[in-house]
């Protein structure tokens, strides 16, 4: 009989190891993998199999922790971010095109490790006392905060053109093209969100994954298409033996990323990308290295922190897709499970960080051998297989529409963050009491 503590440690490390297999594939989001896993778990009791929580919970935590850290690899090397790593792509790609992709990944990885320390050592002891109070204070204000964030996202994008050519309408339109595309993206993705949340087109049997095809279409597929069409191949990558960062840079990145990720994790609908944007502006960190590290911290704190909140005693919160799925399967809230979760985060974080270097080298070898375009084709095929396999042809239709919307910011040079209108707009409307009226107007009710 394996002692419980050993079982927890092995399961957490196992989750992190499995995450290494899935995280380098750009289209595979950990929540989709968790969704597939949940489908298997739901079927087990009917076959007379009972899985102890000490095995399944640390494994799931390991999976989330490992993926949040290791998914940096495709974000930087393959230029395919999820919605939480949108801002890592630009500086990451710059590092990649300078042959310093390995260094870029490791710097983001340092941020993720710092984020794990922040969660276990800072948030771990404070969360049971602090988070319920914060939640109680914030609850009546969430709707207007969401509107303010939405306004900030839309208004903080600046015209990118309009500097050449004759003065007048041509220059004005050139300047506003990107902005208009951003607004259109936000509006269309918001309308898509209204449809998906009020009349989900996918079958009821797989309704728990009804947002999956939209997210794949908005974030993963456009990058695959663009990479396939652009045919840009990165130069040979140098393996870094040291990194140009010091304690000051790490600390500044951790504070900025911790703020952004923590805000995103504790606030409904806000993702790490938005959290990172707000933290970047509020702390005004200009150093590119600080920015890269802060994005690693933000993403780790967002994904892992949101999942961790499910276990915080007295909080009763399910933030993020992973916790929402787990809620259908398990009720948490005891200190026993909370400390088990913290231990699993620490163990999985260590295992994942140790795997970051070897995994990065493997993916660089893969790109050098099969090129960027092949990796993008593979990712696109995985996207299609996953969407059709889980949500069927209706899901494929949703994915195609979402792809059209997701291509707008890529082709017009506006922010991809506008695609998060899919959640921001319907949730902000619902929280303000406007949602049902809009859904009625759209004949969705």
């Amino acid at each position: 009989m394996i002692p419980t503590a050993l079982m927890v440690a092995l399961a957490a490390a196992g989750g992190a190891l499995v995450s290494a297999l899935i995280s380098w594939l750009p289209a595979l989001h950990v929540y989709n993998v968790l969704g597939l896993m949940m489908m298997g778990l739901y079927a087990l009791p009917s076959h007379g199999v009972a899985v102890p929580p000490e095995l399944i919970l640390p494994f799931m935590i390991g999976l989330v922790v490992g993926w949040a850290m290791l998914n940096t690899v495709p974000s930087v090397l393959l230029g395919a971010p999820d919605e939480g790593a949108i801002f890592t792509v630009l500086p990451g790609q710059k590092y990649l095109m300078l042959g310093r992709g390995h260094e870029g990944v490791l710097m983001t990885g340092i941020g993720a490790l710092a984020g794990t320390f922040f969660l276990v050592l800072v948030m771990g002891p404070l969360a049971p006392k602090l988070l319920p109070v914060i939640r109680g204070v914030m609850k009546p204000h969430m709707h207007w905060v969401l509107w303010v964030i939405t306004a900030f996202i839309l208004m903080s994008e600046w015209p990118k053109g309009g500097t050449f050519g004759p003065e007048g309408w041509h220059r004005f339109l050139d300047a506003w093209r990107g902005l208009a595309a951003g607004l259109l993206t936000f509006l269309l993705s918001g309308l898509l969100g209204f449809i998906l949340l009020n009349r989900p087109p996918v079958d009821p049997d797989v309704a728990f994954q009804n947002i999956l095809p939209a997210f794949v279409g908005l974030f993963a597929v456009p990058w695959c298409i663009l990479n396939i069409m652009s045919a840009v191949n990165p130069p040979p990558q140098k393996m870094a033996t040291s990194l140009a960062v010091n304690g000051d840079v790490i600390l500044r990145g951790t504070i900025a990323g911790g703020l952004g990720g923590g805000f995103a994790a504790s606030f409904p609908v806000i993702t790490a990308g938005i959290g990172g944007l707000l933290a970047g502006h509020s702390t005004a960190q200009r150093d590119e290295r600080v920015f890269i590290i802060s994005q690693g911290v933000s993403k780790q704190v967002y994904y892992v922190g949101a999942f961790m909140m499910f276990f915080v005693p007295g909080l009763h919160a399910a933030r993020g897709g992973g916790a929402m799925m787990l809620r259908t399967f398990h009720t948490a809230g005891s200190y026993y499970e909370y400390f088990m979760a913290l231990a699993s985060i620490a163990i999985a974080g260590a295992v994942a960080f140790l795997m970051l270097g070897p995994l990065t080298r493997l993916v660089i070898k893969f790109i050098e051998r099969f090129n960027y375009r092949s990796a993008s084709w593979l990712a696109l095929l995985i996207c299609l297989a996953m969407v059709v396999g889980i949500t069927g042809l209706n899901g494929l239709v949703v994915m195609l529409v979402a792809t059209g919307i997701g291509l707008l910011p890529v082709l017009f040079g506006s922010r991809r963050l506008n695609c998060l209108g899919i959640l921001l707009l319907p949730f902000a409307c619902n929280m303000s009491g406007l949602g049902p009226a809009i859904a009625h107007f759209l004949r969705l009710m």
Partner: protein
Amino acid sequence: MDEHSQAQSNVQEIICQQCGRYVGPLPRCPHCGARQPQRISLRALRLAAVGLATVGLFLLWLMAIHRDIPLIKIADIQPTMNFALVRVAGQATGDARTFREAGKIRSLRFTVNDGTGDLAINAYGKAAEQMALYDRIPRAGDPVEVTGSLTIGADENVSLRMQSGDALKLQRAAKVTPPLANVTNVVEGAQVVVTGAVTRIVTPRSGSRAPYVVTVRAAAGERQLVIWSSVFEKIEQRERLVPGAALRAKVTAETYKGQKQLKLGRAADLEILPPPAATNPAPEAAKP
């Protein structure tokens, strides 16, 4: 791709693939007439993306609003159906419970049984208010069809959330409500008719959330009717509801703190009867 191969690729794009002479951006070689491969325009891609997004979204909207919401059996609900928009048809197993705050209905809850199992139905905010406003709050035995989103928690904690008041199709149960005197053991949720004379009315203190308690002397003995303020205020001609008045009320049996009580669910279910016939003038038909 290194700089040399990139440059080579650029040169290949401006010379004719057939004769090897300079073509530039022309679609056809001016020397040999061979058709030249063209790069796809970014402008065309942009227009295609805008078209795909807007037309696709419109078609998806059409698909969504024309799609029948599936009618499911409660026993068939699986955890993977969390957030699914479904319909459930069955009977309300008891009167809906309303939850009020500052005099307004904040939410209501009732349970539906479709023959395969029970499912808790919740309505919040405007949906609940709308149902109360149009007297569409289900009562025990009413056949209902409810549309809403499933919420599935651990330990088989399943409920359905109605998105609006229109999501409920309600038929009032056409049942014969027995008089209280004929009912020996009134079961929880059963509806009975009480007929008798009011002997006492206990009015709640100002600001209190307690209900009105009306004591009625019926054939089977004295009965106390519980009437919440929100219902009491809607009783027509309630000024006539004084000790000595005769009434007939359709009430529901409930248990509160271990005590059986009879609750008036709707103001329309209480009828204040005219005074006894002896005091009435002679009917028209009796006149010569």
